[in-house]
């Protein structure tokens, strides 16, 4: 795995990263996720706290708890396969809870080798699906995509709009191929 330098000088830090601690929830059952987690832990230097859930039920628990406690995650990253409830079920449940509570949708990044319905992203706002040929490549995509994730967080924070798909140009190329 190539080293990714997450260190930046002070003047390179975005306003979002330089302030209070931000939270990311990674829902992944894959063993490689621990490597990803250790990599993401470098984000702590950037005030990003990563919580790891090992299955869909635990992921939904952390999401519900964050809503209940009023300290929401800024980004959810989900990879498949997941036990108990799969990625699609997780997103559907989360969006239903958000609708019920009149909350804006959490931005979600899904990285899977599964084929989701073609209208999935249209049905679920603030959701981006990165499709990998297999779960191993999904792992490397997550690793390589960490900086993209951080960038997305910054962009999301700044604009408070929907996640721009153009931020993930490489994704579309991979899906098309």
């Amino acid at each position: 795995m190539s080293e990714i330098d997450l260190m930046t000088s002070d003047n390179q830090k975005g306003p979002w990263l330089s302030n209070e601690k931000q939270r990311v929830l990674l829902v992944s059952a894959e063993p490689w996720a621990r490597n990803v987690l250790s990599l993401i832990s470098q984000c702590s230097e950037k005030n990003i706290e990563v919580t790891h859930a090992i299955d869909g039920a635990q992921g939904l628990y952390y999401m519900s708890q964050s809503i209940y406690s009023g300290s929401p995650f800024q980004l959810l990253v989900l990879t498949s396969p997941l036990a108990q409830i799969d990625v699609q079920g997780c997103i559907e449940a989360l969006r239903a809870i958000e609708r019920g509570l009149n909350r804006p949708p959490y931005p979600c990044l899904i990285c899977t080798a599964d084929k989701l319905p073609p209208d999935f992203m249209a049905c679920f706002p603030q959701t981006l699906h990165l499709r990998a040929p297999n779960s191993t490549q999904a792992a490397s995509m997550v690793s390589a995509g960490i900086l993209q994730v951080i960038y997305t967080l910054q962009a999301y924070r700044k604009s408070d709009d929907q996640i721009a798909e153009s931020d993930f140009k490489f994704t579309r190329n991979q899906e098309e191929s």
Partner: protein
Amino acid sequence: MSATSRISCPMCGQPLDRGSIEEVFIEFSTLNSCGRCGFGLDLRWRGRGSALSRPTPNLVVVSTELALEEQLSESLNASIKVEVVKEPTDALGIYAKTLRKEVPLSAILVTTRGQSQRWSDIAVAVRALEEGFKVATPMPIWFFSSAELNQIELSIFEDLADIYWRETPVNQENQTLLEVTPQLFS
């Protein structure tokens, strides 16, 4: 056009007609809020809002047969408000809403899995929501179905509390629900 349809939420513009106003209970007060954006409506709205607000259900039924709402309401105590939805995730949203209002549902009755991949998805999601919201007593979930569960779903159900699976004859799910539910809430 009726007079009520011209009234809109001052915040989001949502027409405040029947079902679009929510009641929010804060200690001893009942306030009205817009069902779309949550904007608190002035007390002057209360009379109108109470008349238009959708009652908080006690019981949610997931079924493709919306007429069940009327049929079930007739056979149950008048104090039990029934709402029928088509998707299990809709029931989950209503449950989240009732938890926020601190008047949780008595039960969810499921006769269809809708677009979900598994029957167990709604049960797992409800229990995770309860755990996250620190709900001490799990809400019973009843399934009425002629479907056969696979081993994975069976093992998931075995790990969860207060999940009840009632086998029914094919295409008799709603009928069985109508027969059994009054006994559950008698």
